[in-house]
């Protein structure tokens, strides 16, 4: 079974985080929601593997 990578995998975490937030600067709530939804779809497709996606879904739903 393929495993979701939950180790740190992003080279420059602060740069990534700032870039992610910058996507939403000056956007309305509905524009931001739309960007987030598109981003989720794009990344899910990139991963593709349903086992990995299922693990990601579970992790996302944990509080």
């Amino acid at each position: 079974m393929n495993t979701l990578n939950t180790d740190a995998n992003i080279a420059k975490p602060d740069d990534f985080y700032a870039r992610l937030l910058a996507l939403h600067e000056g956007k309305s709530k509905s524009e931001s929601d739309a960007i987030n939804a598109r981003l989720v779809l794009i990344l899910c497709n990139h991963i593709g593997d349903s086992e990995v996606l299922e693990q990601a879904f579970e992790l996302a739903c944990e509080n």
Partner: protein
Amino acid sequence: MLQDRYQLAHKVYPYERSPDQDRDSAVRHPVVIVGGGPIGVALALDLGQQNIPVLVLDDHEGIGLGSRAICFAKRCLEIADRYGCGEPMLEKGVVWNLGKVFHKDAKVFEFNLLPESGHQFPAFINLQQPYFELCLVERLRALQAEGAPIEIRGKNSVEAVDVRNDHAALDVMTPDGPYKIEADWLVACDGANSPLRDMLGLGFTGKVFQDSFLIADIRMKGDAEFPTERWFWFEPSHGEGASTLLHKQPDDIWRVDFQIGWDVDRTEELKEANVRRRLDAFLGGASYELVWSSIYTFQCKRMDSFRHDRILFAGDAAHQVSPFGARGANSGMQDVDNLGWKLGLVIQGLAPEVLLDTYSEERVYGADENILNSTRSTDFITPKTEISKIFRDAVLTLARKAKFARPLVNSGRLSIPCIYDDGPLNGPDALEGGPAVTRVGAPMVDAPVDGAWLLGQFGGGFCLLTINTEAPEILDFGGIPVSCVSVSAHDNPELGERYLGAAKTAVYLIRPDQHVAARWDSFDETEVRKALHTAIGRT
């Protein structure tokens, strides 16, 4: 009570007094079908071709007006062909391959069904339902002329049913007054509002989804031309509503379906001025003749079981789906395909009654697949929550640029036949390297064979299909004949791809409804006997 609920397009079975009406006691019939629509008539053809006496009762005198079901799928046409009327349907129907999807004003993408070569019938034809029904009734008349024991009685309305131990007793109303008949087996093909289902107090359960469609058939005037394509709008900017569908039909008629929500004033919406208001906004000033319009409501649900002792349910009487995916009439025809041979064998005493329970099991499985697909389509077309709308719109936006999002766009998953995986009648799938498309439980896939079509050589009875190997021409298993069709896959790549895969030889046991019952790499009489017994419910 005899009351006309709809206008007729073709008065093809006018009322005639039957000798049954002058008998002192009720006449017993082996099979009575209630409902002379496409499903009831198709079942009569199936039984009539088996020489099983069958009586169809309908409370009208012919085929209802209005295009209604317009999209008939390959499997449906193959079944009709088995009944001898697939070709006239194909000849009259419109074949289409190109579809376009719009969101508001913008085109999202287009798709091509890219027909696979080597099939007698295309993936779909568009054909007004009255033509489809007329082909079936004309075939019924031709079979009658050849002596098939089929009878159809118009203006015969079933008023009451009494379920007895080994038959059902019916009170039938006619223009000449009431009479009684009895049926060893009663099949309800009386539509979504099945009066018979109500009389028996049987429920309809499942996921409920309610919406309505304003359907308009129009004939374009002047130079306005639309191509032979399927155009689907999400949230059309030309008017209120969740979706609009434009489809070409024969006779230069276009079908427009406006999804207008559940809570609408039916009478108001059906006024010609209001129908035209929607059409004008949609067509932008083109001139057209309004041929027919109707409001259609639907729900997604089914009966718990399609068999209740001596009474069987088929088509919309047994299950209803949303129209997305053309799964209504198409699945009803698959019900008939499944039921006809089973009822025939049971009536002839060649198979146990439990075989009819497998009709319910297999077709409930099919109905659930259709309900699942059509529910998913409706959830995409009419998102139920804020977040599902956000994702739906994200898919439509991405689909314009990114190919990956296009398979996520769901404007209806077009009907493909049900495969009875793990079905109760399935024998061994013992063909190593055999293709998945023709696995045990699947309907046969057509292929060209020696200038003819493979499927045309099957159906009606059990058959063996041998490829690059031999089996006896005819076998007999306790009164059930099994004939053999032997073909070579040499120089026939389509046949090889669809039936051999990585195998060198193959032997398929084919049911009378052209579904695969079992398959092996070589013939073994003991194995075939065992699989045949499994396939007819003998234990």
